[in-house]
């Protein structure tokens, strides 16, 4: 068990190092000089040079890579070129929107998907199964920004239950913010839940043909009891993998939804950073996203340990 955790940790650290190197390299290759961009086309070469020095762009590339890495380890992500505030501050305020949104969406998606998948699998081949499959197909096919606009039309404009966008900020109370995040979370959760329900369904169906399921039936469990006691946990293993992938996607992939609902999240920050050649912001946010993805995968690997005793090895 220790060696499993250790090897997962090693994968985590090596992935981060590798990613940081690639990110740095990519940013270097992208044409465009932040100093001249900030000062405009009419700037004097001396002014540009001076600004470069101020921004720390005049030293060697290797030195800048090292500075960046060591800075990040100490929690210093540098100062944004355009906003002139520490990147860490910027990111922190945006995370306050992005992480709750992602968690909210993944929670909704899981709460919807697992029972639906279970329901479809238990009625495998029947009419209920087919209707679930049809609806989830629809859920995957509908673009989430369109679904988001439909939600706004119905719940904000027609029913006036929710506001059409923005967040009040956490100092105004948790419930208000959660209410504001409800529509975007639903919009994000729809395609995720559809995928997850299908994964859950096929994972359960796989376990139905396993020998231990037959053993369970032969020892007197009803069909429903056997699914609940023996199929469910075995089906969780593939489901966990998908949840992990979805969470990573939700943290960064919410750019469009954040735009639809005017949410100041990470997706919008990175989009603005790219447009404004704010390299230090882009670098740091991308690195942060990589960290989130790798961390979530690590957590999923650890969750396998909880679910599957075979990974724990011999005690």
């Amino acid at each position: 068990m220790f060696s499993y955790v250790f090897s997962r940790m090693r994968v985590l650290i090596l992935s981060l190092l590798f990613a940081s190197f690639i990110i740095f390299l990519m940013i270097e290759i992208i044409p465009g000089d932040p100093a001249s961009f900030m000062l405009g086309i009419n700037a004097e070469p001396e002014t540009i040079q001076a600004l470069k020095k101020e921004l720390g762009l005049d030293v060697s590339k290797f030195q800048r890579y090292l500075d960046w890495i060591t800075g990040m380890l100490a929690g210093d992500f540098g100062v944004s070129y355009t906003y002139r505030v520490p990147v860490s501050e910027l990111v922190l305020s945006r995370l306050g929107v992005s992480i709750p949104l992602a968690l909210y969406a993944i929670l909704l998606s899981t709460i919807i998907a697992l029972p639906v998948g279970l329901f479809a699998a238990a009625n495998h081949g029947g009419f209920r199964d087919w209707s679930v499959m049809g609806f989830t197909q629809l859920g995957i096919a509908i673009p989430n920004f369109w679904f988001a606009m439909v939600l706004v039309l119905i719940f904000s404009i027609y029913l006036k239950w929710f506001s059409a966008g923005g967040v009040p900020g956490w100092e105004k109370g948790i419930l208000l913010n959660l209410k504001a995040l409800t529509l975007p979370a639903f919009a994000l959760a729809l395609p995720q839940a559809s995928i997850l329900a299908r994964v859950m369904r096929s994972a359960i169906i796989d376990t139905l043909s396993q020998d231990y399921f037959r053993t369970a039936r032969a020892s007197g469990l009803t069909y429903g009891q056997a699914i609940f006691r023996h199929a469910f946990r075995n089906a969780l293993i593939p489901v966990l993998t998908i949840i992990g992938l979805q969470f990573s996607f939700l943290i960064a992939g919410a750019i469009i939804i954040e735009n639809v609902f005017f949410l100041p999240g990470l997706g919008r920050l990175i989009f603005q950073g790219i447009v404004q050649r704010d390299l230090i912001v882009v670098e740091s946010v991308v690195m942060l996203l990589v960290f989130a993805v790798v961390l979530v995968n690590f957590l999923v690997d650890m969750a396998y340990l909880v679910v599957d005793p075979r990974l724990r090895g011999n005690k």
Partner: protein
Amino acid sequence: MNILSVSDFSLTFKNKNILKNVHLKVAPGQIVGLAGESGSGKSMTALSILNLLPSYSKKTGKIFFKDSCISDFSDKEMCRIRGDKISLIFQEPLTALNPLKTIQSQVAEPLLIHKNYTKREANQVAADTLHRVGLPKHLLHRDVYPHEISGGQQQRVLIAKGFVAKPNLIIADEPTTSLDVTTQAGILKLLEDLVKSEGVSLLLITHDLAVLSQCAHRVAIMKSGEIVEEGETEEVFRQRKSQYTRKLLDSVNYAPAKKSKASGKLLLSVDKISSSYGSSESLFASKQAKFKVLNNVTLKIFEREILGVVGESGSGKSTLVKTILGVHKYENGSIILNNKKIDAGKYIDSETRSLMQVVFQDPYGSFNPRHKIRRLVAEPFHLVKGVFTKKDINDRVDIALREVGLSPDDAKRYIHEFSGGQRQRIAIARALIIKPKLIILDEAVSALDVSIKAQILDLLAELAQRHALSYLFVSHDLSVVQNVSNRVIVMQKGTVVEEGTASEILSFPKADYTKKLVKAIPKIPVSWLSGG
């Protein structure tokens, strides 16, 4: 009153007859054997009794448990019978247990469903039952999962689960088929013991007549969904009223007629090789402890000789095969085939490599299902130097198919269209086609039914004679090995513990391990076989 009586029971799947007018009776405290080859409907009989049939099946006839007609029961009513009054023990103990639950909780489950036990009481009874079926003490205390115990122990756990609620009838479907002979002997003894001391009845389903001859009071012989003969065990074995019973009993312990004589010329020499697993180390995998699988193994095969290799699972047989084939590395010693050294990862000229071919246990899994037989059989041709026209190759495929008793027309078909025995014939044709000198038979007949096994053994003997072949005959089944081989080596935990001629090993085993092995082989009493 009988515990179980099946009367005139028939079963069809989508108009296909699965069972036809089956009659079967089990009296209290009796062991009734149900024998037959694969596909004869043995397992379907078991599933019919518990009414665990697929929804598209149609049944007629009655099945009685004591005096209630359980074939008319609803699923809900059956749930009260299953596991409580009648329990079913499956083969493949590893997959029959839920990998994510502790063995104790799985054994306790029938008590929680049927007996209103609290969790604590159920666990206590489960632990007692696990102890009763012979699981060692250290496996009773902590949370033990199925993957942490051996195959024989897993089977004991399944028996405990089937027995824990004290049912009146246990149906055991091939409970020892995937186990080693010594483990098999232990499991059979346990089942017999439960019948004797606890008064349960046992319906023992198996393809192995020798097993039944040793423990069953009555046997029923099944063929294509029908019971062709039923009676007292000894009577059935001695009288052999039906032709099918005669055929089955004749194939048990079948020895092919002609054994080829070994010549003095050395073909393969394996000299003191050792090999281990887990020696690879990569950037992302943590270093694993080396596990030695072969330890100083030495063997020689002469031209036209059949060398048998026996050993239980984990004895290193398969690794030995892989090492000789040059796909697994060895650390010291040498393997010399026809004066050329063989070592995984090093270049072997195709001429030497083409002297050696292999036939595996699972004939279906060893073929690409999307290729036609012609292409599958012609596969080893890439080892042979020289240019072959398409016609040459086709002719050779036709000849090879004829030699193994198939027709050249079969070359146009796919592997799934053939039966298990035919598939093994195709595997042999594939091995034969480039005229090797040595064929390695890795459990090549182990998965086949007795009558098919006899046919394949005949074919192998005939081919060895005709083409001056040598065989390395690897199997866990000592009785088959001794019937076909000139010499036999016995392996245990990666070492060769005994070597000798086949009759020496079986009649006068020297090593303790061989003695144990020989003793554990189930045998039909000789007087029963001679008839009369």
